[in-house]
């Protein structure tokens, strides 16, 4: 896709003049300084930049894991920053899914149980939940490992479980923070292809923070963050 930031009406994600600072005084770190960004529905946007450039902060604000100091963050026209803690939790439960570099699986649950957590949070009927979990594990090629715990799976398998879990609740927005950061190149490639595939298949919007050129190449477009500011015009970089 070749959408221009800020011009697409009805964009799924819209950030306006977003600032976020950590700490105070001389030790203050300005993670984001006036970021404006629009992401259209179904678009996969790669967020690139060096370590400490503000990628994760940007994703956290979009996903409702953090609040901006200034500016507005809207997802599906909902002002994320204005939501209460529980409101943000509901937003995450119903519209946003996450994939983390560290996978973020719950170690005491099996792969299938991990995938089923978002469905349990929505109190999905048991039979429907089990059907969907089975389908998703099959989708990510882990059906034979459904009863294994995360520590019994490889890194790539864990990340695929995380992706399956992210898809479980049929979110409208996928937020992935360095999803291939802890994987070897071959596994990383497979995970990236999987993300690209499911985003297309499910018609969801995706924001992916990455350093990986292959991932960048798979994205509809990429935006670069430098010292907390978006640079360039938001076209492929």
């Amino acid at each position, binding site marked *: 896709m070749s959408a221009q930031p800020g011009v697409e009406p009805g964009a799924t994600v819209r950030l306006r003049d977003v600032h976020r600072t950590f700490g105070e005084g001389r030790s203050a770190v300005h993670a984001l300084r006036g970021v404006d960004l629009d992401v259209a529905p179904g678009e996969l946007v790669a967020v690139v930049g060096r370590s400490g450039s503000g990628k994760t902060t940007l994703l956290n604000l979009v996903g409702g*894991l953090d609040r901006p100091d200034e500016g507005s963050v809207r997802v599906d026209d909902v002002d994320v920053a204005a939501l209460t803690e529980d409101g943000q*939790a509901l937003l995450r439960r119903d519209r946003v899914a996450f994939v*983390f570099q*560290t996978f973020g699986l719950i170690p*005491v*649950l099996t792969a299938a*149980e991990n995938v089923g*957590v978002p469905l349990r*949070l929505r109190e999905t009927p048991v039979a429907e939940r089990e059907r969907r979990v089975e389908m998703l594990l099959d989708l990510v090629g882990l059906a034979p490992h459904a009863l294994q715990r995360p520590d019994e799976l490889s890194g790539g398998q864990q990340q695929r479980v995380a992706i399956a879990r992210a898809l479980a609740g049929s979110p409208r927005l996928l937020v992935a923070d360095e999803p291939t950061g802890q994987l070897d190149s071959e596994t990383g490639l497979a995970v990236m292809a999987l993300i690209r595939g499911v985003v297309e298949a499910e018609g969801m919007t995706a924001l992916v923070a990455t350093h990986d050129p292959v991932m960048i190449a798979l994205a509809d477009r990429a935006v670069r963050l430098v010292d907390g500011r978006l640079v360039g015009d938001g076209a492929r970089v």
Partner: protein
Amino acid sequence: MRVAWRRARADLWPLLVTVLVVALTVMLTDAVPRLLVARADTAVRTAVAQADPPTDLVVTSLYGPGASDPTAGAADTTGGVDDAARRIEDALPPSLRPVLGPPVASATSIDLGFSTPGLPTGGVLWMTYLWAGQEPAVRWLDGVAPGRPGPDGAVQLALSDDVARTLGVGAGGTFQVVLPDHTTVPVLVTGVFAPQDPGAAVWAARPEVLRPRVVGPRSEPTTVVGGLLSAASLPAARAALEPDGVTRRFQFPVDPGAVDYRSSEALATQVAALEASPDVLLAPGPQPTVTSRLDLLLSQARQHVAATWSQAMVVLAGLACGAVLVLLVAADLLARRRAVALRTVRARGASLAGIAGQAGAESAVVVGAGAAVGLTLGALVAPGAVTWPWVVVILVVGVLAPPATAAVTAARSEARRVPTDRHRRRLAQRVRTVRRVSVEVALLVLAVAALAALRRRGALSMSGAADLALAAAPVLVAAAGALLMWRAVPPLLGAALRFARRSRKAGPLLAVARARSTGAVLPFVALVVVTTLVALCAALAGTVRSGQADGSWDGVGADVLVRTTTPDAALQDVAGDLAAADGVDAVAVGRVQDRSQLFDVRGVDAVRVVAIDPVPYGELLARTPFGPAPALAALADASDGATTRATPGPLPALVADPLLGTEPSLRWGDVTIDLQPVGRVPALPAQRTDGSNAGPTVVVDRAALAAVVRAAVAARAAKVGSRPVGTEQAAVDPNTVWAVGPHAATAARAAAEPVGGTVLARTRWLADRRSDPLADGLLTLLVLVAAVCAGLAVVVVVLDAAASAPGRARSLATARVLGLRGRGTARVAAGELLPPTLVAALGGVLLGVLLVGGLVAPLALRLVTGQSADPSVVLSWWAVVPVGLLTATVLVVVAVESSARRRERLGQVLRVR
């Protein structure tokens, strides 16, 4: 140094908890034994001071027939009484001398009948010579002191003004006294005196010299008076009362303040030795005797102290072991918090010894600080030498546990590598299982052996440090029980997990899955053990308090009891007065005779005979916890014929089970009577007047007993052709009156005054028992240890929650990212922490109660409650406090964690693996 300080500061609260635990437990285990010794001294002194009758050492000696000379002067008395008292005092064993006060000597006649103008119906006179370093100081109101007999040959005697007034005889007056063989002796009253100090100890030897005493029923009162002999007049009295009409008594009062627990055993032994061999005291006359209740009383007091000591040792052992477990949990938490640093240091090449050394240095400082605080507080509470055994155990574990867990944690990075080969993996797993099972079985065997030894030997046999294992038996059982319970937790959680998996919701699954994977055996065992101790202390305290109340019925038998040292027909009047008084619901009068001989096919038994009027006594029992006694009605029916019996025959009796169907006979006074068992003895007060167990009891109808005894005496007289003599007159005079009712105690005090009987109110008995220094001290200790153990339980829950907090925080953060709301995370955290805590708390309470049930007898609680039999277990409400307290603790922990979670940024939490 700086690194060590930084590390310590980072883990300040677990270190402070360690200091607190060490300080508290060291203080208690150090100070309590010293406090107990002090209480034991107080208990022994109180027992001696309150003994009734007193524990005086009394040497009794006769002169021997034909040893008197009416013409002998005062020198004869000085040699035979005054100097003899000094000789006996000098001959006392050195260990007894500091305990015994100066002697009061007396030389007293047998009972002499008399009648005077003031007492025409007559009375009983004792002529007595008194000496306490000198003859008692008196002021002569009329006449002079008695001297040698004059030409009339009369024995010269002085009377106190009260006695003289009662007798209607003044100075210069004469009267006759009658000896048992009906011969008469003239007496001349030479003077009437008033004591210079009526409270002087010398008068206590024969109070009737100053105040006449009336005994017997109102219809036939007998006045007992004393007349004072002088050193000069005693020889004539002796001569007039030949053979052996005068008895010398040398009475050494015991100074309670000079007795302590440590010396009590030697004192009791020494007194018993003197009673067995009175000759060593060089007392004059043939076959002197030594009597004292001191040895018996000291033995009882020592047994009481030993029981309390053992009970306290069991509780302290539990506290020390509980503290040790808590210190292990704290050490484990420290190692977990430092796991990354320890593994890093190890990876950089540090030796395990070096790592352990650093941790040991820190723990030595921490435990040293705690010990210093504890010992200082202990010394302030109870000054004295440190009580080392449990203190050493606590210090050693406190110092060594942190380095051990640190070394193990540092080494685990290498040791925990899982073999890739499946067979080797299984083998390693089996080795771990065998090791674990071996430890658990060993603990189980040790616990069972210790408990069996405790039950077999009884806690009274505990004597010192060698018996620490015996004292720790309950805590070993608690630990073994905790391990068994721990084995039951996984199946329980497994079942819960299966249920949670079928649920629609995420919370139950998360909570149970985490509870299943994070539970650790050590905190669980520690929690069960300290909770068991709380329940044990609560159940012991409840049992003791309830047992004391039961013991008051056992000891008194009614709301109030009036007792005379010798049977007194006047008690019948006391009973009549009581029955007529307001607020008295039932009254019974009877004769209680301990240590009577009972003959049956098995031999001779010492039994207590309770001779009562069955109907009123049954009505009285029905108003007490002993309850209705139908057997008494059966006794009354069976005794109907016996009350009018003129010829010898069997006496209906209620007897103990083994005697039913037999034909026993009873020695009563100087006759033997056959018993006819007609039923089983009902539940009765089971104590003697001295508090000891009365043993087997025979209950008979008092009127029937009198009739049977009369018939037996008459039959014997007829057989030998003489006049009936012996026990027929006072055979069944009562010595006890029981009464129940709200105002019975007050009424009894008024009614008993004329007979000088001892009034024992049940409420007084109970108050005395509860204020007893040992019982009171034990209850205080139980409450204190229960409170400390409850505190330790809270500490264990907090430490355990802290150990699992990082994993919980990470799982809950993930769940929150996925959409779990704040209240949901708190529920998940509570669901993870509460079930094992509740299982441990409830299990601990159950174990504590079961343990008390098994320990009531070996701990000899009856000696604290004052019961004859072991008390029934009664659970205090605060036995279940740990369940509520620990639930509240978990909820507070969850609330604190939730509050901390609200401050953390979810995105950051999930960036770090």
